[in-house]
């Protein structure tokens, strides 16, 4: 099977598990889901990282830190959607989870300076209006340099 097809199969399997459970799966879980050897799944993770579609956990190629918009670890951007809790990588990805799942969603965030709790909500395909703003500290040319910081 060509690498591209394998990569796509792994990516879709990973996202299917994530959407269904709220948890980004590891290589063993994806392996069981799609019936491929785990070593092939790990190789696909690396290929998908090269294509800037996944970010493996630093030092552990069997786990995924970021499957945008989903985070593989708890973050400050929990998202409630479809009766499940997901974690987003940032405020963009908090909205991104609603966009990816095509559903209403609510995210609990906080003001970057004061810590004031803020709620972001998507309802009927639109953001519930608020006066909040998002600040991009890193220019687009460097978003992938340190994605965890960005």
């Amino acid at each position, binding site marked *: 099977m060509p690498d591209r097809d394998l990569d*796509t199969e792994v*990516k*879709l399997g990973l*996202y*299917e598990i994530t*959407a269904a459970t709220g948890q980004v799966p590891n290589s063993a879980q994806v392996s069981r889901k799609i019936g491929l050897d785990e070593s092939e799944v790990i190789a696909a993770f690396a290929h998908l990282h090269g*294509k*800037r*579609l996944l970010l493996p956990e630093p030092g552990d190629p069997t786990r995924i830190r970021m499957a*945008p*918009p989903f985070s593989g670890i708890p973050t400050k951007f929990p998202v409630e959607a479809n009766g499940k809790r997901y974690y987003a990588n*940032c*405020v*963009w*990805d908090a*909205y*991104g*989870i*609603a*966009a*990816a*799942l*095509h559903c209403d969603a609510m995210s609990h*965030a*906080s*003001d*970057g*300076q*004061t810590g*004031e709790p*803020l709620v*972001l909500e*998507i309802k009927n395909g*639109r*953001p519930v*209006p*608020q*006066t*909040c*703003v*998002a*600040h*991009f*500290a*890193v*220019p*687009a*040319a*460097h*978003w992938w340099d340190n994605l965890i910081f*960005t």
Partner: protein
Amino acid sequence: MLLFRSEENVNAWCAAQNIPRRPLINLEQLWQLAIHWYANRLTLESRRPGPDEMVSIFASLGLTGPFWDPKSDQWK
């Protein structure tokens, strides 16, 4: 990127962190970015926007200039 209640809070954060103030976007712009990036992420057709496509998406939302250009070398 971080979320703030107000522009004043952004300015206070940048000063406290000694980080230059960068562009701000509102929540409607952020939602449109989320749709462009992720609406088909769980499908077979999913792909990440290429550099030129990113520039076009940003421009459609009023986000222009080298900050929003993934090929810009102004920030090295």
